[in-house]
């Protein structure tokens, strides 16, 4: 025997036994692993079949697709099949409420602007995504408020609408400039103008923005839409307005409240704790009632706050209180070392919070945040009790129409599908977001 060490050669891995992989392996492991399991599998499959068949039978096979009124439906199939013509006749109202038919294009345009505004957020080469996202939350409502409401423009309102309009122009000019030249709008104009130094370039950039604002002002002052009072708003449109504002408001407000609750400054902390605990301990219905009936009592005579606005404020405050606690949970999950590392490199509170802590915290909070958004979207149905005609109350109105008297199930079925589509899209998008943001952060 010599002193040379033995050579260790790892053994190659064997393939797994065939019965544990593939479709057969999966079924054996998950559906038929034991006798009770197999019985449950067959029982479950049977129940699933019965329920799904009953629904398809009612909604599709026996359903009536053409009729003048509910009487005709009942004469044809009785109650065993759905009566869809009633829903079809009411679809415009289910979507737009009592909004005047000839003005509905304004709502559609408003939502198209929303989509156009958000598109750059998904384009790969756009760098100013944070600015675009912020402008979407802060300035888009200014522009769209005029599309939705219309009426005479006061000086201040015109200025605000134009701010929204200018922001929209800026979003797309910057998007195009960054995709084509890799420079933002202001920087591109400065480059074209041949700015000599940074100071000059910055001034030219601001000048370009001012020019954009003047342009928007000119366009906006030419617009003149008929006023559509908010009491005519309704249906899916109203639901989206309330929940959209609630969602857009509650996330930033929740972040600020959560930071405030963790603040070292007692006054801020006490205010935030009080606000959060107060609004979280009261049902949304109560808050809506409070805002609807009590608020006018406290306001001076003659000051009229719009009913829709009252509902929106109530929903926003309620949602931010919930969001604050979700965000706080996320902040607590970030190890103290992250703050310390940021501080040791000379970052201030706002820098380390917004660039180190929140991006990590928000990522782990995505499931709860989106869950909250979905909850908020569905909770907006509660505004029906203070006399707003959201999607749910609109669907109830179908059965009160003399032609379709008693037609309740079909409209409910229809709006259930609408709610499902929206909520399902939200939850799928959140899963997708989680996957993309999670890249590289797992071992």
């Amino acid at each position: 025997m010599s002193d040379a060490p033995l050579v260790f050669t790892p053994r190659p891995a064997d393939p797994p036994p065939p019965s544990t992989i593939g479709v057969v392996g999966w079924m054996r492991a998950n559906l038929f692993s034991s006798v009770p399991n197999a019985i449950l599998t067959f029982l479950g499959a049977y129940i699933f079949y019965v329920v799904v068949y009953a629904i398809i039978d009612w909604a599709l096979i026996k359903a009536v697709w053409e009729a003048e009124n509910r009487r005709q439906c009942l004469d044809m199939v009785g109650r065993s099949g759905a009566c869809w013509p009633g829903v079809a006749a009411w679809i415009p109202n289910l979507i737009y409420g009592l909004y005047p038919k000839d003005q509905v294009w304004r709502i559609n345009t408003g939502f198209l602007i929303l989509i156009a505004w958000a598109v750059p957020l998904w384009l790969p080469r756009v760098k100013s995504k944070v600015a675009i996202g912020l402008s979407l939350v802060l300035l888009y409502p200014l522009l769209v408020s005029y599309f939705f409401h219309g009426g005479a423009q006061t000086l201040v309102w015109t200025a605000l609408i134009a701010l929204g309009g200018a922001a929209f122009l800026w979003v797309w000019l910057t998007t195009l400039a960054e995709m084509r030249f890799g420079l933002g709008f202001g920087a591109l104009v400065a480059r074209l103008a041949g700015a000599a130094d940074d100071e000059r370039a910055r001034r030219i950039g601001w000048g370009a923005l001012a020019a954009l604002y003047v342009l928007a002002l000119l366009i906006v002052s030419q617009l003149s839409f008929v006023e559509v009072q908010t009491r005519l708003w309704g249906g899916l449109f109203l639901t989206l307005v309330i929940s959209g504002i609630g969602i857009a408001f509650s996330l930033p407000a929740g972040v600020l409240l959560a930071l405030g609750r963790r603040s070292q400054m007692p006054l801020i902390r006490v205010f935030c704790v009080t606000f959060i605990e107060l609004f979280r301990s009261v049902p949304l219905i109560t808050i809506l009632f409070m805002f609807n009936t009590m608020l006018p009592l406290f306001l001076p005579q003659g000051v009229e706050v719009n009913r829709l606005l009252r509902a929106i404020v109530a929903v926003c405050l309620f949602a931010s209180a919930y969001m604050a606690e979700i965000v706080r949970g996320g902040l607590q999950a970030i190890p103290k070392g992250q703050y310390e590392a940021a501080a040791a490199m000379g970052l201030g509170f706002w820098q380390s919070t917004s660039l180190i802590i929140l991006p990590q915290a928000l990522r782990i909070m995505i499931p709860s945040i989106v869950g909250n958004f979905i909850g908020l979207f569905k909770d907006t149905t509660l505004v029906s009790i203070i006399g707003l005609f959201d999607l749910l109350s609109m669907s109830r109105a179908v059965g009160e129409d003399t032609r379709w008297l008693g037609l309740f199930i079909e409209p409910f079925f229809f709006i259930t599908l609408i709610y499902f589509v929206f909520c399902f899209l939200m939850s799928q998008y959140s899963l997708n977001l989680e996957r993309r943001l999670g890249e590289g952060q797992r071992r």
Partner: protein
Amino acid sequence: MKPAIELIGVSKWYGSFQALKGLDLTVAEGERVVVCGPSGSGKSTMIRCINQLERHQKGDIRIHGRALSGEAKTDAPILRETGMVFQSFNLFPHMTVLENCTFALTWVKQMPQREAEATAMAHLERVRIPEQARKYPLQLSGGQQQRVAIARALCMAPRIMLFDEPTSALDPEMIKEVLDTMVELAGTGMTMVVVTHEMGFARTVANRVVFMDQGEIVEQAEPELFFSAPRYDRTRMFLSQIL
């Protein structure tokens, strides 16, 4: 030699528990000081007071002759001369290795992106992991992560480097690569304060070893003397337990 760090009667309490009991310590420019002691002896608290991750309540701390006031605004430029390496690395997991390094350069020093990346790559090369620049921290081994943390601190061009038990969270196989990096750094004349139990490192690199217990400095000496002839029984007992 001009002093880089001066602690004068520094005391620190957590509630009613006194963690530091009037510490006096001067570290000269270019000096390499190893701080050791049992857990709870206040060595981490001391090093964290130097860069104000913990506020001391009594006494003075001076960095290159400039006293810390406790005001974040006035202290910030003074503290920028210190860099810190933590036991648990504390890299930012949502950024790549390169972004970890360029981050503070662009946000604190307002350095243009390209210049910041060049600086960061230079330091990553110095710790011998430029090829990992595009990966995320959690895709690296512990030793590599700690070397990134060292590079990240060096990017800010500190004149003083503080190490808080940099190898305690590492597997034995990885301790050496981090220590080698630190030895190289010591060769450049950097002022270093290192809290560690790596006595081999202390022996070869340190100019001075400081032994702490119960919030006080028990004794300090050149490594040669410290290991061969400790004066206090407490030091002897500690050494007998870890060597």
